[in-house]
């Protein structure tokens, strides 16, 4: 025979558990909506009114498998996430150009969003994790191959490191979800360390 006070306690705990579950669901839903709203209001291109600044783009070359830093002047917004997106957009614009040595169609619009988060386990140092959300169109049109895909991933990581020294880790999403590979070869499930991608002048990865 279960004492009455235990039955009452069980019911109270059950109600509390259900209540907390409901609240958690609400918070998750609210966070998701906030994220989507943030994505909608984020600028799709660097504002022309922003002052032009110099940015270092680490550009890939398929012919000799190299990554070469190049300095470009472009208008950059103040918000770090939008700034990172503008820098990567410029990099992908270079790749979409007809004379590019690493041809990828799509250009700046291929970077849907860049989220900057505190790097796990290194909050006190101020290290950041950049989550780069690419478009599905970009991944679908990317040339398939170990070299081509790796150069794209490494040039993005190295460009982020060159312009945002606090970014130590990079993860990739495609259309907001994790994807096994970029176009069948480069692993997108792992966290890339920018220190491993940054080249010396004109070096090979």
């Amino acid at each position: 025979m279960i004492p009455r006070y235990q039955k009452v306690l069980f019911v109270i705990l059950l109600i509390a558990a259900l209540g907390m579950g409901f609240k958690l669901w609400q918070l998750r839903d609210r966070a998701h909506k906030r994220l989507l709203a943030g994505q909608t209001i984020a600028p799709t291109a660097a504002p022309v009114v922003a002052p032009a600044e110099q940015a270092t783009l680490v550009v890939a070359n398929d012919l000799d498998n190299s990554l070469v830093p190049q300095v470009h002047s472009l208008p950059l917004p103040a918000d770090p996430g939008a700034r990172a997106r503008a820098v990567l957009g410029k990099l992908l614009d270079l790749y979409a150009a007809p004379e590019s040595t690493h041809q990828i169609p799509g250009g700046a619009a291929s970077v849907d969003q860049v989220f900057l988060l505190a790097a796990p386990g290194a909050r006190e140092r101020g290290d950041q994790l950049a989550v780069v959300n690419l478009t599905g169109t970009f991944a679908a049109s990317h040339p398939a191959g170990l070299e081509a895909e790796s150069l794209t991933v490494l040039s993005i990581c190295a460009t982020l490191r060159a312009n945002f020294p606090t970014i130590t880790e990079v993860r990739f999403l495609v259309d907001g979800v994790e994807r096994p590979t970029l176009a069948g070869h480069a692993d997108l499930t792992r966290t890339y360390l920018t220190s491993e991608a940054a080249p010396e002048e004109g070096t090979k990865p």
Partner: protein
Amino acid sequence: MRWSNPTTALFLVLALRVPAQQPQQAPPPSTPSPRFVVVLDAAHGGDDTGAHLSSGQLEKSANLALSVRLRSLLTARGFQVVTTRENDTFIDLNRRAELANHANAAVCITLHATESGSGIHLFASSLAPANPTRFMPWKTAQAAWETRSLGLAGAVNSSLAHAGLTVTLGRIPLPGIESMTCPALAVELGPQRDADRKVSAEPDTPDYQAQVASALAAAILEWRSDPNRTGARQP
């Protein structure tokens, strides 16, 4: 411990007895022939088609064709060759590594093809070299073989260059070979280009594949006879 099932107990007794009888039935020990196993891993297969080459062929078919060609050359030179696939089937990356590791391979080569870049792209894993331990993490097991994979890359690089082929070397994350416990490389055939950067041979051109296969076979032969190459299995 109490055996509730008499059959289980009987099997246990038999299992314990069999090893004791084996030495009496086995033939006199003979000197084992040296094994030098080469694992050829034709990437992709089945629904995983890989790249679409300019010639219209799929990467998985070009990889398999090169694997078959290289296997013939190596077998003719007395190597024991293990292939991860012999037909158009999908093999999981983990299964490929399992096959290579069970083969106790001295060389593991993953074959790819692409329509971008120029010449042959050689890749070793970008894992930092590590000292071998008794139990190695599955996803970074290659770290203990990294130094010798780089040595193998050097041998393959010089052989390909000697054959007049354009080669680029690099170290990148390679999930396909990072679980392999053997000196391992990824070899990607890009199109052969002339001085004007025009394509002179596609990755699936038979003559081009034959030239690459011959150079790879020569490199592995040289690697086997290299006095600086230490024991095949243990790093």
